[in-house]
């Protein structure tokens, strides 16, 4: 027996309610939305390039099989309906019949099969499609994904920027691994998304215009999107304020966020980052020195005051984060924090065999990879001084220098920021998986290894019952919070900023700007 998950009728009703999310007024058509990217884009082809900067233009240019509503429920997009077989090993996508690429060629199941192949070979998140063994194409509008094991993470992996369907007739002219450097990744890009590429000027802007043959009738609402590339946050802030930019996402400087919150014309919101799931933490290398002892790691957590981080450093812009999963995720299970307790911290250190000698228990180092988190690192140094731990702050000249240290386990502690990327299988497992130790930056850089955690992740990865999955992840989060390979402190204070009087229905769903903004309009 197969169960049909969603029907088109329901979806239409839902998207209608989605559009009414921010206001009841009728969306207006036309106009140019001026928006901003904080860093230069390397590659517009989101099938081979991940990351939030590619995600925004990528999700406009390329459509994916599914999209999500605010409640983490999958909605039809390129796939009109979809079925998951009882055993979880077959996922059938029934594609819309009127989808066309920007060059007029119809989109078929061949393109879906090709895209899966390309993503498997080039996309950095191997976990997304690893269990997909083959894609069968019984007819042009049916794609059947054959899995080697049940893979519930596939649902989120088929949405947002993660599964861009790219045209086989354009990108299939060479080796599959060559798509990574295909010349059409940056110019004459052809997708089937709501907008097509007008101009991409490296370091300057990406300009997109409405695709008139987009497969959803009447959309998109906007005629044009101008994505300006402005890397200086202070300059961006002024541009929001004086109205030069209508909307922007991923602003994370507490000082600037709080300043812009006071500007009447702007709305500043932290909604829209649940699936991207960015969280900050204090990483501890569990493979060497005093930090190999869980009691020392706990002592550090008790000595580092989260409250101070939230109030003083983040200035109230970030939320608490207590486990490896972002608090907005349905799998999040809040854990009891380590409230500031210097006595308990000292007792744990004594117990672990690190008494105070000449005013010091031990010396540790702490690293950071980018200037934005230096205050956190300096604070940890000051906080640990109170329990007689000497901390040396090691600055890295740039990101690669830090990445090398992390990826090879050459550190004691470090501040780190990691994204969930949808399902925990994609962005969470990598940090705790004992087979992924010291495999480059954002792998299991803590050298953490726990057989039960491995087992829980393996079970949750194939569990198709959402409630059971949730329970498995709850146990997983409890163990992580108890053994502390990383001490979770806060969510990254990403905010979306838009001109309240100008922008209607801004992208603040679970995927933020990594999703098509065909429903956004200018008032």
């Amino acid at each position, binding site marked *: 027996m197969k169960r049909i998950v969603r029907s088109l009728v329901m979806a239409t009703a839902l998207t209608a309610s989605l559009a009414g999310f921010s206001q009841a007024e009728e969306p207006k058509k036309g106009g140019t939305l001026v928006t901003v990217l904080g860093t230069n884009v390397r590659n517009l082809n989101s099938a081979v390039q991940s990351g939030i900067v590619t995600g925004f233009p990528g999700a406009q240019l390329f459509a994916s099989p599914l999209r999500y509503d605010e409640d983490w429920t999958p909605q039809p997009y390129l796939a009109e309906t979809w079925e998951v077989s009882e055993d979880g090993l077959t996922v059938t996508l029934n594609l819309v019949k009127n989808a066309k690429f920007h060059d007029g060629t119809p989109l078929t199941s061949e393109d879906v099969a090709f895209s899966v192949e390309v993503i498997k070979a080039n996309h950095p998140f*191997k976990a997304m499609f690893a269990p997909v063994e083959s894609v069968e194409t019984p007819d042009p509008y049916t794609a059947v994904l054959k899995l080697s094991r049940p893979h519930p993470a596939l649902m989120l992996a088929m949405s947002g920027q993660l599964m861009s369907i790219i045209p086989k007739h354009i990108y299939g002219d060479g080796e599959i691994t060559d798509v990574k450097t295909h010349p059409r990744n940056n110019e004459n890009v052809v997708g089937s998304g709501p907008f097509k590429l007008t101009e991409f000027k490296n370091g300057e802007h990406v300009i997109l215009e409405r695709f008139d043959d987009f497969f959803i009738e009447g959309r998109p609402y906007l005629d044009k999107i101008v994505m300006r590339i402005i890397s200086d946050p202070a300059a961006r802030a002024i541009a929001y304020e004086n109205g030069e930019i209508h909307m922007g996402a991923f602003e994370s400087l507490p000082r600037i966020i709080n300043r812009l919150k006071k500007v009447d014309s702007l709305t500043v919101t932290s909604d829209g980052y649940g699936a991207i799931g960015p969280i900050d933490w204090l990483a501890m290398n569990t493979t060497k020195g005093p930090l190999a002892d869980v009691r020392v790691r706990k002592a550090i957590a008790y000595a580092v005051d989260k409250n101070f981080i939230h109030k003083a450093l983040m200035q109230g812009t970030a939320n608490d984060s207590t486990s490896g999963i972002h608090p907005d995720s349905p799998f999040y299970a809040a854990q009891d924090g380590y409230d500031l307790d210097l006595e308990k911290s000292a007792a744990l250190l004594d117990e672990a065999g690190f008494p105070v000698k000449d005013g010091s228990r031990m010396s540790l180092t702490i690293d950071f990879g980018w200037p934005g988190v230096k205050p956190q690192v300096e604070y940890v140094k000051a906080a640990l001084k109170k329990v007689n731990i000497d901390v040396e702050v090691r600055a890295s000249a740039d*990101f690669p220098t830090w990445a090398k240290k992390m990826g090879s386990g050459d550190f004691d502690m470090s501040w780190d920021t990691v994204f969930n990327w949808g399902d925990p299988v994609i962005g969470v497992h990598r940090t705790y998986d004992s087979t992924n130790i010291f495999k480059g930056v954002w792998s299991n850089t803590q050298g953490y290894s726990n057989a039960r955690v491995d087992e829980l992740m393996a079970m949750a990865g194939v569990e198709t019952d959402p409630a059971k999955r949730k329970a498995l992840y709850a146990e997983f989060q409890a163990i992580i919070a108890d053994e502390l390979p990383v001490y979770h402190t806060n969510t990254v204070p990403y905010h979306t900023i838009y001109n309240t009087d100008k922008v209607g229905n801004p992208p603040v769903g679970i995927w933020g700007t990594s999703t098509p903004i065909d429903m956004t309009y200018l008032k």
Partner: protein
Amino acid sequence: MRMIYAVILLLAVLVLNFSMMHLAPGDVADTISQSMGGADQEILDQIRADYGLDQPFLVQLGRYIGNVLRFDLGYSFFYNKPVTELILQRLPATLLLVFVAQILALFIGVILGVISARKPNGIASHFVTMLALFGYSAPVFWTGILLLIAFSLKVQLFPVAGMRDVTIIGGFWVQFVDVARHMVLPVITLGSIFLALYSRLSRATMMEVLGSDYVRTAKAKGLSEREVVYKHALKNSLSPVITLAGLQFSAVISGAVLVEAVFSWPGLGTLAFQSIIARDTPTILGILFFSALVVIVGNLLTDLALRLVDPRMRGKG
């Protein structure tokens, strides 16, 4: 002979920079993985193999020098584009900014210098000295942000960032005015440092020249003050200023890095900054190569300009 030296120097610069880039820990594969939010080890190895980063150092160096000798600056791993294309795309913006800032600073600087030299203790002179001191000591990015707050936010006269407003559609003059509007603040910011230098120097040399014998002779002939200053003294006091301007050419390009960063000016400076951070070795070396070329051309132009103002130079070299 000079050309041969220049080529040898250029090669030395390439080898040195290549070695330094190689010594730094981490490589472009790490930054690519950063821009992707993390990558599998397999993907990292694949990227390194694709770009020859797994080869021994000398092999990589040899390959690179060989390519440069064939006028091939290589391929940017980070931007997925040939380096020459990247640089040529960005060069005009930087040259425009640098030339306009340099010429305005030179012109205004010399005028201010002359004005203050004529009455060294007058109010105007003190004002120029103050301005020069401020311009020289204020950090470029700070001046930039301050100007932005004043003229883009408080008084909304000029745009915040970039070089053009892409929503404006129009003919050449419309575009011209648009670019000019975008240029005002970056030019003032970049020009302020050089304005300071030129006004100070021309003030000093002008005062020296005004005290010399031939100026006294000219005055004794009964020439007007104006004629003495602008016809006789100015020409002779210009050559140190022009020499300085030539020497400053490289400094203008390095100064442009900061100004471009503040104003998101789509020039070489921004590209240089981004590629250093990204460890994009071919692009960095390409930019250095181009900067060296620009400096050489700048020096040549300086020589020509000196000959123009100072006939004594014409017989030489």
